[in-house]
């Protein structure tokens, strides 16, 4: 990813907006963009979802493979989350080996889902020590207008929740829905013009500083945190965004569980 030029004027304007409690697109500090979730959009995937947040669009697809369980965990299957942001998603994204940015994206989403324990890996075992299901969640960005993290996390959990284990195709019994017991949700906050805002757009990301990603499970348990990019924040700032994350996560969770 070639580092895009950040016009100083944009940074100055963003901080001017922030001190007047305004944002580039006239949203409030804690307002998200219009969010749309569509399920089962990919005919070849065993579970899939498309999330549209303003002009940000992402796809998530679930595939299954047979794996040999790891020797130290013979009764467990696996979960893998892979993310590739390719050149289709924006002028500033380039093809080639996955960039650190796109690896970070995949790993943060992966941790949130994995650590929530929403998928019981013991349940994925077919023959202990020999055969188990590996669940692979692939995240694919179509259009990046900022905040790919939240879009990926939302599409990811929604795709898992409507996935079917294709046992018939592998000739090991009947197709069954993948059991997903919890709904971890991520909310991301960017420091723009000196204050944190929810769901930053691309231009806000461009002219902003650090970002914080929070994944909350059912009952508001924290499952993953990540601070990215250059910047310094205070404990009070963190407490404030945590409060907002609790209410926003539960709204989005209702959307997924809908």
């Amino acid at each position, binding site marked *: 990813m070639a580092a895009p030029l950040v016009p100083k004027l944009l940074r100055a304007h963003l901080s001017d907006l922030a001190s007047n409690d305004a944002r580039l697109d006239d949203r409030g500090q804690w307002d998200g963009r219009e969010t749309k979730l569509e399920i089962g959009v*990919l005919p*070849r995937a065993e579970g899939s979802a498309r999330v549209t947040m303003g002009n940000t669009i992402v796809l998530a697809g679930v595939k299954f493979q047979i794996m040999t369980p790891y020797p130290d965990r013979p009764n467990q299957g696996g979960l893998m989350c*892979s993310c590739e942001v390719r*050149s*289709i*998603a924006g002028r500033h994204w380039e093809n080639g080996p*996955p960039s650190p940015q796109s690896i970070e994206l995949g790993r943060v989403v992966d941790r949130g889902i994995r650590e929530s324990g929403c998928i019981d890996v013991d349940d994925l075992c077919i023959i202990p020590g020999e055969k188990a299901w590996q669940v692979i969640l692939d995240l694919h960005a*179509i*259009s990046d*207008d900022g905040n790919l993290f939240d879009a990926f996390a939302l599409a990811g959990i929604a795709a898992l929740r409507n996935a079917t284990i294709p046992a018939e195709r592998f000739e090991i019994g009947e197709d069954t829905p993948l059991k997903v017991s919890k709904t971890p949700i991520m909310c991301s906050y960017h420091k723009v013009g000196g204050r944190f805002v929810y769901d930053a757009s691309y231009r806000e990301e461009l002219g902003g500083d650090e970002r914080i990603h929070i994944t909350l499970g059912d009952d508001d348990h924290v499952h993953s945190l990540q601070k990215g990019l250059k910047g310094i924040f205070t404990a009070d700032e963190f407490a404030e965004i945590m409060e907002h994350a609790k209410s926003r996560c539960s709204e989005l969770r209702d959307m997924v569980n809908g």
Partner: protein
Amino acid sequence: MGGYGDVQMIDENGLRMDGRKPGDVRPITIETGVVPVADGSCRMTWGTNEAIVAVYGPMEAHPRKIQRQDRAVLDVTYNMAPFSTTDRIRPGFNRRSREISKVTADALESVVLLELYPRSKIRISIEITSAEAGTRCVGLTAASVALADAGIPMTDLVVSVASGKINDVVVCDLNKEEDNYGEADLPMGVLPNSGELVFLQMDGDLSPDEFKQAWDYNIDAAMEVHKLMVDALKGGEN
């Protein structure tokens, strides 16, 4: 009508398993403006194929060594998403994708007025999100619609269709099952306004007569598909 192994793909009335006549193409939808951050874009579904194409540019060509002093370069990438097939595709370098990217670029370079943009680059990203059979044709056709949507000047749209042979019968636009038992495949890229060709591949085994039939099916189908492309670009006007 002969069989191929014990699989019969054409019934006694000459219809195919999905009810199509030999010269029919699968259902197609075309939509533009689907990647809001791109200069031009297109989503095309063709049977259960789905391709999403975004066009960026013309823009400064980086790295500098790819620049051409007399014209623009097309940077085409064709990629199948990991979840686009029955068995997951591992992301990363892939010789098949590289070849298709190249022949797609060669086809499009024949219609885009590259000499208007020296030293710049036009980036065309083709993502196959669902693959059935004939994804290279869908990708190329969708790319030409996306280029038009981006306002890139070109002498014509490109329509790409493939015909093939199953059970010794020549048919147009093979679907997944037919492709698995196909005995030949002839994808072509047609300029609908002049009938000229910019893309041609073939593999398999066709007699001269069968080849002629496959060729004619492709040209006829291309004209049908072109109407849909024009409709999509005009948004139902005129």
